[in-house]
């Protein structure tokens, strides 16, 4: 009955569907399975692996940890703490609004509090929580031992923690951001928000977003390249599909926000007028960049939660998921569509009438893939036999809440209604229905479902169910009538309403229920804590689930699998493969070479490709993020010169980081199963690092595209004054441009040759290009403070300069590897990375020059 093809679709325990399960593909996979390794004593393997994979002892061990289980849990725990802080802030908001003349907070503080509530919930709770879930769960689900780039996981965590702490500290000192979580400028400009409040947001959030990009890169690579051999892309567990969609959206969605934040910070710090209408800038450019991120953000938050539900519902219903293919199609549709809707947050800014109709239609359309998923889940429940375990309660809470939030979302997509409801309590109600319904309820389901893997314990009966009911009551009591409050005209983000007695009973009711809601969340937290402290031991695979994460002891060991599952293990109850894997019968058993190893497979069919050697515990991520943190603090302090100098330690640490990837030690091929010998990563044709670099370049390309978008937007849409004529001296400018393009082309051509001299010449050419662009900027380009177009050109020049500098650094790095004879034609070291970066650099340089010249000529 159970076959290879239904992994991830849930095992057909009491499968009553008429739908036959296709066994042919699975049979094919099984016959092509890897040979079995001989069994070994499980305890010996456990000791051998633990020695290699475990964290160091004590506090130092926490500092140097790079393991995905440790970091995933830490991400989630930290996010939960931020949820609690954001929750306390929301209580302050509700206390203030309980009465019309709340004298409890003054307006300045109130503004800081709702801004911090929104920003914390979005950037420091929701995003890190889903990153943590992905980091913690994916390797277990896909049958591997860690994420692709363990040090990057740790770096992401520290950046998140430090960025979050900076923002919290600002709140303690009363200088927190106060312009709302979308930071509309000119309100957030230097003129209207003097002081560091807005800088705290721009720099803090950008610092935190390093972790989002890092997580997106490694989640993409892990899903594409680290699935158990035989786990085809088209058959992987749905959670992996959802996370793949999420990470793709993060790679494309976050760069516009980062671009916008950098530009706004440049405007605030150096008076480059990107958003100043008096000097050719445009406040709407900020809104476009923000919502180009902000709308996908909503789906970035929803998709992982939906992925968790697609895993949990079939297990709770003792059946397989209904409509696997339709769900995958819906996820892909959502990823695509969600980038075409951002304007629905801007229906009142005065955009042309056709654009309104287009974005309204697109926003309505995006409900279709969501509906497909919701109905597939309900269909799954129909064909199965839902059992009301605690996770199922939260899933029912999800259905009720999220459906209502989705419906109000569709209402808001209808332009005339949007004009009335926009920026009122109606929107506040809608967004909490979607975020709490579509994220918090599923996350509570996920917590109660996966907790045994974390704690190894059973929960204490009763409390969780009680918490659910209190939360459900508190939530709807708080937010349901807020729809009405909004329709009665109450705008969001106000602290007093002395002239509107008709809003009093509504707000008072919301405030009272919000305390019920908080009590509910406290009970939920208590339930988790009690389970950790007092729970009885849980047996393995407590839910009789089919996916791989249950095929390991509880709580999970640091290395996940003593031997890696292969096609034959995908087919089975977790229970029945657990022993085989623990005895080393899967691939790549134990850690005989005394280093962290895992199997890398091909993207589509998951054929074994090579063995990746992962770095061990190290404090480098902490050091690097701390040095970035120093840069951020110096920027906040307005010490821009020192901040520039602080980039030196950052670059040195990055150099050391890269040195850690140098091919060294035992580079002989590894026998992962009898007669199956694979090369190690340093000798692989397409290593994890190279796939990761491609993912990163996708994000980087989106950042560049955001700058181009800005340039086009300012010259086509913005009504402001035309820029003063260029002051450049044409022959000198043309000469500089010629040197710049020639040297970057030459650097790229030479990077095709694998030799020490080529690396040397490459570094040199890049430096010449860098010198050309710096001279152009200093002597030829117009003063960037005069007009927004010149400011954007200067920003573009800065972007290119940074890329040329990095390319020079990478060429120099490759040169050093040559000089030390660390690399050769079979072991390329940093060479392929330099080559890829160099190609990217020349591409953006030439595009930027063509656009610039086109703008001048046209």
């Amino acid at each position, binding site marked *: 009955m159970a076959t290879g093809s239904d992994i991830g679709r849930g095992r057909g325990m009491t499968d009553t569907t008429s739908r036959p399960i296709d066994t042919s593909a699975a049979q094919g996979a099984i016959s092509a399975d890897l040979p079995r390794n001989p069994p070994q004593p499980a305890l010996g393997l456990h000791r051998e692996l633990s020695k290699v994979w475990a964290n160091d002892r004590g506090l130092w061990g926490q500092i140097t940890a790079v393991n995905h289980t440790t970091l995933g849990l830490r991400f989630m725990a930290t996010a939960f703490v931020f949820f609690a802080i954001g929750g306390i802030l929301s209580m302050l908001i509700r206390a203030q609004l309980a009465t019309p003349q709340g004298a409890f907070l003054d307006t300045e503080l109130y503004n800081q509090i709702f801004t911090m509530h929104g920003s914390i919930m979005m950037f420091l709770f929701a995003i890190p929580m889903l990153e943590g879930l992905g980091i913690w769960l994916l390797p277990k689900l896909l049958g591997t031992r860690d994420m692709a780039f363990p040090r990057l996981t740790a770096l992401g965590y520290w950046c998140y923690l430090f960025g979050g702490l900076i923002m919290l500290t600002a709140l303690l000192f009363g200088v927190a951001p106060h312009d709302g979580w979308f930071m509309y400028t000119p309100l957030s400009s230097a003129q209207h928000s003097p002081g560091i409040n807005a800088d705290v947001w721009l720099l803090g959030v950008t610092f935190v977003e390093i972790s989002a990009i890092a997580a997106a890169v490694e989640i993409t690579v892990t899903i594409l390249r680290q699935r158990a051999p035989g786990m085809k892309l088209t058959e992987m567990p749905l959670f992996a599909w959802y996370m793949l969609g999420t990470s793709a959206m993060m790679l494309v969605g976050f760069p516009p926000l980062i671009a916008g934040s950098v530009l706004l910070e440049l405007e605030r710090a150096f008076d480059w007028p990107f958003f100043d209408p008096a000097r050719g800038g445009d406040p709407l450019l900020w809104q476009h960049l923000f919502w180009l991120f902000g709308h996908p953000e909503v789906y970035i938050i929803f998709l992982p939660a939906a992925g968790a539900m697609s895993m949990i519902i079939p297990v709770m219903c003792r059946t397989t998921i209904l409509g696997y293919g339709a769900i995958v199609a819906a996820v892909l549709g959502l990823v695509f569509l969600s980038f075409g809707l951002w304007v629905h947050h801007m229906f009142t800014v005065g955009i042309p009438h056709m654009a309104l109709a287009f974005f309204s239609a697109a926003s309505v359309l995006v409900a279709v893939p969501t509906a497909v998923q919701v109905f597939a889940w309900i269909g799954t429940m129909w064909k199965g036999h839902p059992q009301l375990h605690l996770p199922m309660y939260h899933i029912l809470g999800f259905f009720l809440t999220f459906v209502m939030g989705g419906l109000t979302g569709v209402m808001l997509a209808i332009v005339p209604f949007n004009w009335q*409801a926009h920026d009122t309590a109606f929107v506040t109600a809608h967004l909490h229905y979607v975020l709490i319904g579509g994220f918090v309820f599923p996350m509570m389901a996920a917590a109660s479902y996966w907790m045994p893997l974390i704690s190894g314990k059973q929960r204490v009966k009763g409390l969780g169910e009680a918490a659910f009911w209190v939360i459900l009551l508190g939530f709807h009591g708080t937010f349901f009538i807020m729809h009405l409050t909004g329709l009665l005209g109450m705008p969001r983000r106000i602290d007093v309403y002395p002239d509107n007695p008709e809003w009093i009973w509504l707000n008072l009711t919301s405030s009272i229920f919000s305390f019920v809601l908080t009590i509910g969340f406290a009970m939920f937290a208590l339930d988790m804590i009690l389970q950790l402290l007092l729970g009885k031991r849980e047996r393995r695979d407590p839910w009789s689930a089919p996916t791989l994460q249950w095929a390991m002891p509880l709580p999970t060991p640091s290395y996940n699998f003593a031997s890696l599952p292969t096609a034959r293990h995908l087919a089975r109850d977790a229970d029945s493969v657990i022993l085989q894997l623990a005895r080393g019968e899967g691939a790549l058993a134990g850690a005989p070479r005394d280093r962290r190893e895992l199997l890398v497979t091909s993207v589509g069919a998951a054929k074994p490709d090579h063995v990746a050697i992962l770095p061990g515990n190290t404090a480098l991520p902490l050091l690097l993020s701390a040095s970035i943190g120093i840069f951020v603090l110096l920027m906040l302090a307005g010490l821009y010169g020192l901040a520039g100098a602080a980039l030196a330690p950052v670059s040195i640490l990055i150099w050391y980081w890269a040195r850690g990837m140098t091919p060294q030690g035992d580079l002989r091929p590894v026998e992962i199963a009898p007669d199956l010998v694979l090369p190690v990563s340093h000798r692989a044709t397409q290593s994890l690092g190279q796939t990761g670099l491609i993912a990163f370049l996708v994000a980087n390309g989106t950042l560049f595209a955001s700058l181009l978008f800005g340039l086009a937007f300012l010259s086509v849409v913005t009504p402001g004054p035309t820029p003063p004529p260029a002051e450049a001296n044409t022959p000198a400018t043309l000469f500089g441009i010629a040197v710049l393009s020639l040297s970057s082309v030459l650097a790229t051509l030479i990077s095709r040759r694998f030799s020490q001299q080529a690396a040397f010449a490459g570094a040199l050419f890049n430096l010449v290009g860098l010198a050309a662009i710096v001279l152009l900027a200093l002597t030829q380009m117009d003063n960037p403070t005069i007009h927004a177009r010149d400011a954007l050109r200067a920003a573009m020049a800065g972007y290119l300069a940074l890329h040329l500098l990095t390319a020079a650094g990478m060429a120099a790095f490759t040169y050093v590897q040559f000089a030390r004879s660390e690399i050769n034609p079979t072991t390329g070291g940093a060479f392929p990375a330099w080559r890829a970066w160099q190609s990217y650099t020349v591409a953006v340089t030439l595009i930027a020059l063509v656009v610039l010249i086109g703008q001048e000529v046209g």
Partner: protein
Amino acid sequence: MRKRCIIVAAALLLTGCDGNLSTLTPAGPVASEIALLWWIMLAGSGAITILMIVLVSLSLGRPRATSVRFWTHGMGLAFSMVILTSLLAVGLWIGERILPRDDGAVAVQAHAWQWGWTFTHEGPDGVPVETDDMIHIPAVEPVDVLITSEDVIHAFWVPQLAGKMDAIPGRTNRARLQADEPGQYEGLCAEFCGIGHARMRFSVQAHATWPPDLTSDGAEE
């Protein structure tokens, strides 16, 4: 039209949905159209919510044979598409009817600043008249408000007369509103604009005769 408004208004009074900022007690055709749209959407959403609750409740029983396509294609695609496209059509149709158009409607200016409003309309002698915190418009006929901002982004909103429109520095936006009867209405700034945002209110005086004679202090009605 008028009858429906009265019925709706009566129903609302009973439920306490009153208030001079309520979008549910519209006082002009633009706001009425939108309120009607809201009631249609509320009814539809209520029905869909109940349908979903029923579907989920029914699933809680014993397992049953069910077809995949019914859920993914039937409900997921067809059902949702039908509902959504009809709603979109209604939305576009209503949107079309309330859109400002170039029909020579009276135009008045609204200029927002931190934190207050300056309004300008044409006086009886053709000279522009400036007023603070009270905007004057003609009643019964459509009016275009030309909205600008001095400093940051604000939004002009008179819930009983029409939807809101942002005041953005560097741009002029146009909002169309219409009051069924002469009288006073309330408005506010809807886009967060800093410390004074909550208090950035204004009033609307709709006049039976236009241009109005302000010397009699609005006592004409």
